[in-house]
């Protein structure tokens, strides 16, 4: 398999590779965003519990 031919994609490289890059980018974004969302929810829950705890104290 020809390596330079692979990158050139038969002349269509500027269409194919941005697609692949965007796809990988979106996959990564999904994971990152989901984890960030969870982390924020955890922090917010911890704050809410701390406040509720301090009110009772």
């Amino acid at each position: 398999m020809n390596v330079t031919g692979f990158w050139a994609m038969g002349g269509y490289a500027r269409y194919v590779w941005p697609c692949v890059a965007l796809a990988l980018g979106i996959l990564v974004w999904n994971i990152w965003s989901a984890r960030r969302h969870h982390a924020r929810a955890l922090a917010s829950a911890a704050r809410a519990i701390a406040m509720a705890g301090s009110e009772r104290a």
Partner: protein
Amino acid sequence: MPTWFYRLASPPYVYRVAARFAPWLLAGAGLLIVYGLVDGLAFTPPDYQQGDAFRIIYVHVPASALSVMAYTFMAVAAAIGLIWRIKVAFAVAAAAAPIGASFTLLTLVTGSLWGRPMWGTYWAWDPRLTSELILLFLYFGVMSLRVAFEDPSRGDRAAALLAVVGVVNVPIIHFSVVWWNSLHQGATILKLGTPAIDASMRWPLYASLLGFMLFFGGVLCLRLRGEVLQRERLATWVREAVRP
């Protein structure tokens, strides 16, 4: 109904189970997608008509399939939430929305980049492209509506209703290439009979498609944990979960 079915309505159960499933789903997704893309990009023979440009299929088709599946999934979850008043269902719908929207965006952009060499244009106002664009707007509408309400539970219900109303667009997207003369290719895989795609190109595509589906499941689990936590912030079980 089996017990696990009822347990699915329990927020702490879902919170725990999602954590356990996510890594497996994502690992499986990773393997399948890597195989699908590597094989599809490097090893399958070029298309006799489209040359190497056809390889965009390995991201475009899974993305488009998922964009529609995610919306249907969201609408079903929304309907379950509205009919049986199950809060976890609303969390599931909320988690699915941004994932589906991102896949819709991916579909539109990869489709556009594929269209340029194939049809000579980055965009065409044909039924399938237009209905996919409408899908993106519907996702945005649902997400915007949910956060527009001060009362989150009201926001959940309103967004759920809108999601269900918008589901009429899904069959339109799928059948648009059948009902109208469309620039876009007709159904080659999701139809009755043998798929109209050559065997040598088939397997990486199936792998990529399945990989994207597992990916959706995995990311949904990740996001669902955050959504459940948000809605159950003041519940007792959360104290245990949050404790470091």
